[in-house]
């Protein structure tokens, strides 16, 4: 009996020590794995912009954002945020396809969304980002220039379809392509006016991956990109038989099955007029 008591005591002690250990929580670094692009500020708040690479480039850009109160140094946990990118060209200005900014579920301070930059900055033309947000019933705004250089490989196709609609098609995945069957996804928008770029629904995007350096070698069993429901990304399967430089030739097909842009690679047609590029 004495022994039993002794063992019980030991067990209790052990359990207690374990539980105190596990309750000793470290503060969670919610931006781990992300790199800061830049900070935008106004008099009351500063907004930190993050991405996986720490930069922006032409094409689809997923961004993470958090707001900090400058006086309390506390991060904002709840806010209504809107963003608006604007390209300042020499003669005109236009916006870009973008998502809403929404809180990342399961985090305390992070918000996310994407912006599709159709064109890169240059010496005289630049992108500008404004953020409008409301906190506790009060509206605020801040803005700054942002840097959007051209991507190394082509990740976006901006084109006028046979239906005279101006489309923007951006590659989302794969971000880390492999010699395998890759998930490929893309976002398709049309340009309604300089400010508005709604998602195009119920189209189909045909892909034909090719290696121009290898006599236009192609891979089999690729699956065209379709939406699972309206408003979603287009998703398909992309097969890459080896590493290296690949050109993903594209054809965009409307719900009637008519190709609005892009050519089939066959005969003397070595590439489509619209394509993405991957190199790994």
């Amino acid at each position, binding site marked *: 009996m004495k022994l039993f008591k002794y063992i019980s005591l030991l067990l209790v002690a052990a359990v207690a020590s374990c539980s105190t250990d596990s309750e000793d929580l470290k503060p969670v670094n919610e931006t781990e794995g992300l790199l800061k692009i830049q900070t935008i500020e106004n008099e009351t708040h500063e907004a930190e912009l993050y991405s996986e690479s720490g930069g922006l480039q032409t094409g689809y850009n997923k961004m993470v954002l958090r707001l900090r109160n400058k006086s309390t140094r506390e991060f904002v946990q709840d806010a209504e945020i809107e963003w608006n990118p604007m390209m300042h060209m020499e003669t005109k200005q236009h916006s870009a396809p973008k998502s809403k900014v929404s809180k990342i579920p399961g985090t305390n301070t992070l918000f996310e969304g994407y912006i599709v930059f159709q064109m890169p900055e240059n010496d005289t033309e630049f992108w500008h980002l404004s953020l409008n947000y409301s906190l506790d019933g009060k509206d605020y705004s801040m803005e700054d220039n942002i840097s959007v250089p051209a991507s190394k490989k082509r990740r976006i196709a901006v084109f006028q379809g046979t239906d005279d609609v101006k489309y923007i098609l951006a590659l989302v995945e794969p971000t880390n392509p492999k*010699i395998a069957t890759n998930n490929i996804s893309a976002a398709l928008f049309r340009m309604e006016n300089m400010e508005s770029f709604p998602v195009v629904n119920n189209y189909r995007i045909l892909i034909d991956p090719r290696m121009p350096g290898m006599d236009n070698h192609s891979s089999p069993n690729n699956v065209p990109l379709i939406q699972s429901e309206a408003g979603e990304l287009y998703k398909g399967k992309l097969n890459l038989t080896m590493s290296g*430089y690949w050109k993903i030739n594209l054809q965009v097909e409307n719900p009637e099955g008519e190709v609005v842009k892009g050519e089939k690679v066959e005969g003397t047609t070595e590439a489509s007029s619209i394509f993405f590029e991957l190199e790994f």
Partner: protein
Amino acid sequence: MKKLAFILLLCPFFRNDLVAQEKEIDTTNYIPMKEIIVIGDKGAVSQKTVKSLATVDEYLDRSSKISMIKRGAYAWEPMINGMATERTVITIDGMRIFSACTDKMDPVTSYVEISNLSEASISSGQEGAEYGATIGGAVNMELHKTGFTESGWNIGLSSGLESNGEQKIAGAKLDYAEDSFFLNTDFMYRDAENYYAGGNQEVQYSRFTKYNFSAVSGLRLSEHQTLQGSLIFDKATDVGYPALPMDVSSAEAVITSLKYEHHKPLDYIDHWETKIYFNSIEHIMDDSQRPDVPIRMDMPGWSDTYGFYSKINTSLKGHEIKVNLNSFYNKSLAEMTMFPNDPNEKEMFMFTWPDVRTFYTGIFMEDRIRLNDYLHLNLSGSLGSQTNRVESKPGLQSLRIFYPEMAEKNQRVLAAASSKLQLQKKHFSYTLGIGYGERAPSVSEGYGFYLFNSFDGFDYIGKPRLSNERSVELNTSVGFTKKRWSIKASGSYFHINNYILGKPDAALSPMTIGANGVKVYEQLEYASLFNTHLSLDFLIDQHWNFNGKAIYNLGRDHNNENLPLVQPFTYYSALQFQKGFFSAEAAVEGALKQSDFSEEFGENETPAYAVVNLSASQILYLNQQKMTIKVGAENLFDTYYSTFSDWNNIPRRGRNLFVNLNYVVF
């Protein structure tokens, strides 16, 4: 030329043992099933061998069961009964070894040298199933060993020169043997430049250099127990393959084993032998020697094999029983890296063999039954299990591009059985055999990824879910032997179900620049192969001999279309003279035109040819030291020709003069 060939052919033939010695297994009327080719310059046979320092490939090529696929001057690929690597089993002292090259540039036979070997025994069809599942047959190359004799020290040197290709050969051996210990070591070096085809046409990229070292040692543990270890190290460098778009900068093999033998371990067991072995091959294929290629590439390959066998032999009242339990584990990995012409682009990489692990375990049993003085019955059977697993995850993912549902692992059972009846009465002997065998697809057939075949110009893709290939085989032979005459005719027929062959898939896009398309390994309903062989020997008088042989094979698929690489009517005949320490030989070999060829495989009609070879040999004794000198001329009339098995019709060697010297120091 042709006339001479015919005269020689029609003349009575005589003893064939100049090219292939049939070994006496016992003194009864038992007919040995295996053809034995004695290799190198060892023992009494040496004098009869035309060119003692010939390559292993040239020795094997002399067998009527074997033909060699030639992609250059080096590393020919043996076919047994017209069937190449994937349908045959080639072993070295019972050890399984697997080539590391996806383009078949390194058959197992390329990793040994004549100085290592004493003989090669060739088994046709299911008679060769002892060391693994086969369809066409097997070759077991036996390492040279003096064994536990009282022969003491033995040192020999050999050297050779060949005019065509400037091949230089140098070899040395050092043997020591006593009753309880022996050590045999040897070294051989060959170096050849490009050879010239008939008409003095240089065959580019046909050079090679090869070094080979081997050591075998034995220790007697007790009167009945011995332990033997062996090591072969082989390295070939700068090997050119004129028939292929790439060469080999280095092919290296380490082959080791440890064997335990026990005589009469039990009353009813005569002999028990167990061996464990390991071999490792690294094969570096590249195109750095080629000035003009569409794209630079490296294609290294690796193959490691671990294995063992344990076998017992016993004799019981007219039964000779053998049981062999064997197993191996092989790892085959090959990759390709291409360097883009645009220096800003990244290298292109793929797994061509995705680290395939093959694990085989099987048991083989054989019973030779002596029914009466004239009649013997041979029964054999084997059962094995083979597992293939793709170890490389990227490799598996790349194959899943073609086969999304493909499993990582594939298991199969391989069974074989054969029986052979042998009747020997007076001057006649007859054999009649039937066999059944299965084989698993090879690594390339199952898992190859864009392997370019330069013969048909297609990239090949493996298919992981191929069924076993199943062969039913019939064979027969009739022989007649009289004092000075010997004649033998034999034939075999293979009906192979699920015959594996690459078939074009027009929907797939080739990877290799300039390729004709992509073939995927598929299975034909069946294919049949028919092999015939006739040999005649005649002893004219005590000095003069005549022998000859003729071979004709036929191979058709289920649509009666020709199979690739099928031997047309081929003949060989020789007239020999021997007196004292001198011998000489004149031989003619040739073939009729290959009219049954496979267009789909890129073959065309190979014209008829005949070449004449002359040789002479003299043994000299200098201060009790024996020296053998052999000189000869091959392709005397410098004929330009290629055979059915010359890859892409590359021409064979033109006139070649050779000198071989063997010198026994003591």
